[in-house]
């Protein structure tokens, strides 16, 4: 379970995120959407433990910057930068070592096969295309069998087969009890899978609701997005 309580982040004079609170329960898929400059990236980086912030972020009840929380937290960043001279397999081995995983090889092989990367195991990071780097990034995040996993624009650069696999994986992770947070601009890419939507605008959560509640109101996600953010054409 991911719990964000009164998260605020100020860059010098600019308040990028203002008292944001939300929860993603275990077995739930939350999507974080919002126009450019809404504060999504700052929120994501704060959850990933990369920024100093005011407020509280808990991963399964533990502070997000603690080693215990990090052990069960997976993160797929927006820019999939890999180590230039580590092979695909080396990246997975690093994850296994850093997260103290045991008997991880079979799971790693399965993930690579699923993303059609099994024949690229010996390729080094700098030889991979952006899309392939993204796939490695996803495999690394999932190898640790996270309780909470966060994806920042995960579909960018992926081929249709990989997008399909990833969507299926979201559902499998959800069914296994994992809390998932996906930040994206492309509403269509997550239409079928989300359980909770969080719309951010100007550093605040302006809409936080579940799929069932939205369905009951009869409004579409796209319509809600535009009405809450005043944006046209931002989301596809």
């Amino acid at each position: 379970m991911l719990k964000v309580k009164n998260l605020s982040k100020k860059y010098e004079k600019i308040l990028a995120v203002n008292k944001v609170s939300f929860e993603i329960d275990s077995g739930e898929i939350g999507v974080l959407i919002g126009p450019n400059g809404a504060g999504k990236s700052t929120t994501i980086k704060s959850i990933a433990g990369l920024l100093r912030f005011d407020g509280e972020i808990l991963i399964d009840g533990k502070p997000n910057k603690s080693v215990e929380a990090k052990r069960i937290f997976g993160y797929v960043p927006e820019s999939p930068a890999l180590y230039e001279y580590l092979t695909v397999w080396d990246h997975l081995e690093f994850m296994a070592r850093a997260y103290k995983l045991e008997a991880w090889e079979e799971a790693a092989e399965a993930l690579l096969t699923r993303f059609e990367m099994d024949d690229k195991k010996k390729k080094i990071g700098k030889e991979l295309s952006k899309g392939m780097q993204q796939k490695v990034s996803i495999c690394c995040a999932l190898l640790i069998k996270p309780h909470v996993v966060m994806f920042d624009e995960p579909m960018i650069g992926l081929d249709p087969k990989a997008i399909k696999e990833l969507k299926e994986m979201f559902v499998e992770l959800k069914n296994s009890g994992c809390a998932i947070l996906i930040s994206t601009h492309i509403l269509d890419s997550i239409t079928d899978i989300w359980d909770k939507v969080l719309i951010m605008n100007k550093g605040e959560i302006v809409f936080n609701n579940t799929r069932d509640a939205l369905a009951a109101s009869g409004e579409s996600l796209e319509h809600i997005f535009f009405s809450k953010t005043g944006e046209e054409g931002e989301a596809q």
Partner: protein
Amino acid sequence: MRSLLFIIRRTLKNIVKGVFKKPILLIGYLFIAFFIVSMVFASFAMPTGLIRSGSPDLYVGIITMVFVLMYYSTFKLGIDKGSTYFRMADVNFAFPAPVKPNHILLYGFIKQMGGTLFFLFIAICQIPNLKNNFELKPYGTWLILFSVIIYALSYPLISMFLYSWATKKTGRKKLLKRIIDILSLVAAALTLLDLAKTRNFIETLGNVFGSPAIKYFPVIGWTSSIATASLNGFTTEFWVGAVGMLVLIVGASIILYRMNLDYYEDVLEGAEFFEEAVKAKREGRNLMFNLKVKKGVKQKLSGTGPSAIFFKHLLEIRKTALLLFFDRSSITVIVSALAFRLIMPHDAQELPLSLVLYFSLYMLLLINMQGGLSSEMDKHYIFLIPASPHEKLFFATLSGHTKNFFDGSLLFILSGILFKAPINTIVSCIITYVLFGAVYLYSDVVNQKLFGRIHSKGLMIFIKAMINILIVVPGAIGAGIVLAITESEFFMICVLGGWSFVLAVTLFVFAAGIFSNIETVS
């Protein structure tokens, strides 16, 4: 910690494996290794003070000035972006991992030690030159290398502290920048005042940068005192500097290691910046990187067909240059060439501009600017323009030649006035400078056609530099012979210029096919 060491270990292993997979790379690296070993051997074994025994004051002045410039640029950048040992891959993989931040910092230090090898290499290349001109102590080489290691270890640490302190409160960044600017203005004013008094650049260099106030100035003075002990021996300044820097590095490391660390945010911007800088270097536009783009520049694009590329480059230059074509590369070439000529003894009065020309050509080779060409080759537009490859190459490089003409004119007219050279020598120097620029540029393109974008940019730059030096050698020999026969600097430069013209045209013909299809540059 073991998982982090795994990254370093495996990276090194994969680099070595990659080199053995491609024999041409292996040959290249063996060549570099041979070059480094030769330089190391020369640095340690060659006799000192071979050509002359320069004054200790001048030595102290040069070394201190170099450290002042190095620390100034790194601190200024550090305050802005936060210096970092880390790459974005570390941000994505190591930072979110369940590893203590202290261990990650230690890992960063170990990586930085690898980075010091680069600085050591640069220093080793300069030592033979220093030994030729100054009488260093037998242990002098070790001390110079020690000071370089101290610099390479201390600047990221200090930058991290500065950034961390500056970003905690609004206004601190501005305050720190202002302090650094004021200090540099004071140094510049003192230099100018002293120069007005002495009218001798060498004396001024020693007076200002060798003054006791600077010798004991924390960090900069301390580091330079370590290096200058290579000539002055183990004086009090050396011990103050060495102990000061060691206490600073060890102390700062212990504080950082023991602190409840939350430094990821401080290094994040630095890591992103570093990633961009690496990309810019790979694309051959390192001197254009991080330039402020002027707003409100009004200039319509003109030219049709491939000449539109040239006018687009002119517009880009106007938006990034300080004035007309005057930019960072102009400052680098002009200032360093003039300083070199001023520092050199006046035993070449009959050849007033040769030293300036040689040093500026050397700097031009080091800068290795490709002008607008490299950025064009990364995009598809130029390949689609309906024109012949020759036309496209000519117009894509014309802005580079124009800029070289601008820099060359500025440098040689200024030097001509300063060193009282005849007009025909000034003009021949300008033309030779432009032609050499063309040789470097087109040989770059030919190299790219031959080798593609291989493995390591460092190796590529080394190969290019070696090829450039080799093709220039016949012209230099010819110029030497002509000088011996005619004793005329003008004729000597004309021979050099003539040879570079032949080279430039030949290389242009070979290079033109680069725009036939995008595959030739990938």
